[in-house]
């Protein structure tokens, strides 16, 4: 009868020792980690210089429609009357001051608004609520225009998933974690902002 009692206490001692080791291990991990810790959180953002507008941003986000939308760096825009992010390739408007119907626009959801400013110049703004992040306009503007339209993860929408589903699918490796206090990778003038 005394045999199991003694065994039990020996096991108990072993366990206490292991507990000490466990505490030391967790504390050690915490200490090592402390040296590689950032105060502030991170968010996901895509680098517009890497993006090839493959279309994954529109369909791979856990949100539907995607948290990725197009943004416009007005400072880079040529205010072109024949905008390649706005008109489908080969489009010939009858009258350059006319705003064409949705069927004549490149954007599948008519999310880009066109407004005359002065001379031959038109302003293009995004109705972000309509944009689905397909990147068609970005491709057009990047290939033939100034590249002032580009995609960004919009942080008023993004859930900041621990692993962004689009990042996992992006063929360009364009996604990375950025500090939450610099949550955008903008083009042109706005980069400084």
């Amino acid at each position, binding site marked *: 009868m005394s045999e199991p009692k003694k065994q039990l206490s020996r096991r108990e001692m072993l366990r206490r020792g292991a507990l000490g080791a466990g505490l030391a291990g967790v504390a050690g991990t915490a200490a090592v980690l402390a040296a590689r810790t950032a105060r*502030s*959180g991170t968010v996901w953002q895509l680098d517009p210089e890497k993006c090839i507008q493959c279309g994954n941003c529109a369909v791979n986000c856990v949100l*539907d429609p995607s948290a990725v939308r197009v943004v416009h760096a007005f400072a880079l825009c040529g205010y072109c009357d*024949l905008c390649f992010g706005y008109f489908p390739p080969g489009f010939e408007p009858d009258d350059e001051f006319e705003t064409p119907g949705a069927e004549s626009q490149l954007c599948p959801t008519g999310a880009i608004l066109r407004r005359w400013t002065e001379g*031959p110049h038109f302003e293009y703004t995004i109705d972000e609520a309509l944009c689905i992040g397909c990147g068609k306009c970005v491709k057009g503007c990047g290939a033939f225009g100034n590249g002032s339209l580009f995609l960004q993860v919009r942080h008023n929408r993004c*859930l900041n998933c621990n692993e962004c589903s689009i990042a996992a699918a992006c063929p360009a490796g*364009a996604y990375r974690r950025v500090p939450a206090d610099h949550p955008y990778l903008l083009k042109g003038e706005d980069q400084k*902002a």
Partner: protein
Amino acid sequence: MNRHATAAAVLAILAALLAGAAPAVERFALPQFKSGYVRPATEVPAPRADLYDWLDVSALAAALAAASYLAIRARSRRGLWWLAVMSLAYFGFWRGGCACAVGATQNVALALGGGGYAVPAAVALFFILPLAATLFFGRTFCAGVCPLGALQELVVVRPLRVPAWLEHSLGLLAYIYLGAAVLFAATGSAFVICEYDPFVSIFRLAPLGRPASTMNALGGSTGMLVLGAAFLAAGLFIGRPYCRWLCPYGAILRLLGRVSRWRVTITPEECIKCRLCEDACPFGAIRRPTGDWPRGERLIERRRLAVLLVIAAALLAAGAGLGWRLVGPMSRMHHTVRQADRVRLEETGQVEGTVDLSDAFYATHRPPAELYAEAAAVEASFARASPLFGAWVGLVLGAKLIQLSVRRTRTDYEPDRAACVSCGRCFAYCPIERERWKKASGGTNAS
């Protein structure tokens, strides 16, 4: 006129730009506005404030304290149940599942992997706090804090008994999954725990605290939603299938739970071996008393242990070898390696045509040699990490063999330290415990 000139200019550029993406280039002069038109600024809505991360950490700490108190001191199953409901609502549905200790394991691995990633302090605390709590109180995190556990906890209706051999074998999966998750996270390849989290798509379905329009969350994850539903359906009859056999964080908690300072007991008083609690645990965590082992067998046992140690060492070596053989396929989890492989196939004419993966590289106008060098560096890190992963798998198998052969003496019915998730179901099955309640509350049953 103007328009046609631009159109002609554009057609000329067209040929040069078939690669598709192009960085900002000033093809068209920036207009100088004379009418007083002011260019709008690009809108940049801010993310959720950091403050909320600290709210999450505080909620975690408070929930851990509450779970430990309810499981160890108050011994209240009802309290734990309500805590699970609240944690599920907060960490699960409100926070969308991503304030998560299970997933934080990967952030920690990535930070320790040496790629220069700094883990946000809040995420580091999500990883560390439950581990520390487990060392003191056992797996109380699993009882009522973890949203994945809480969701499974609440759907158990008719748990079936899983045969011991199956339980032991499936239980190994979690350790292997942990090893794989650490490997892929530390090498910066993927966060597989997040990618294959069966429940997160369920959490994202309900629009708690967010405009419903932003929460039509099926995009890109329909398959995972189906998997989540399957896990929940299975969870009706098999208690916590994810926790028991897959959860990588649970694997760490099991190890720590074995040595915890305090833990859940079926009753704090003496067990009378009435066997009433034998089937109380839906997770198969209650162990029977063993009785005394015959004394003469000590020597045989020692010999067997020696043999098993040798086998374990062999398994470890074999695992490392296998890990070494698998460096190639494993490293393809990394984007750079996949891209380099594809570009190499195209450059050497082994495949025709391009795909998005290679187009993305050509659009950078970098020489392929650079990409190959980057991929080689990634493969080198896999060459170090992959044998370690293999050795880990071997170690897990070996340790299981040894664990199965070592005879423990148990005099009472008691929850297994590793397997018990501290849910408190067994309390009510114990007649001694019921007696204790009666005494404590003067007849009215508090829990």
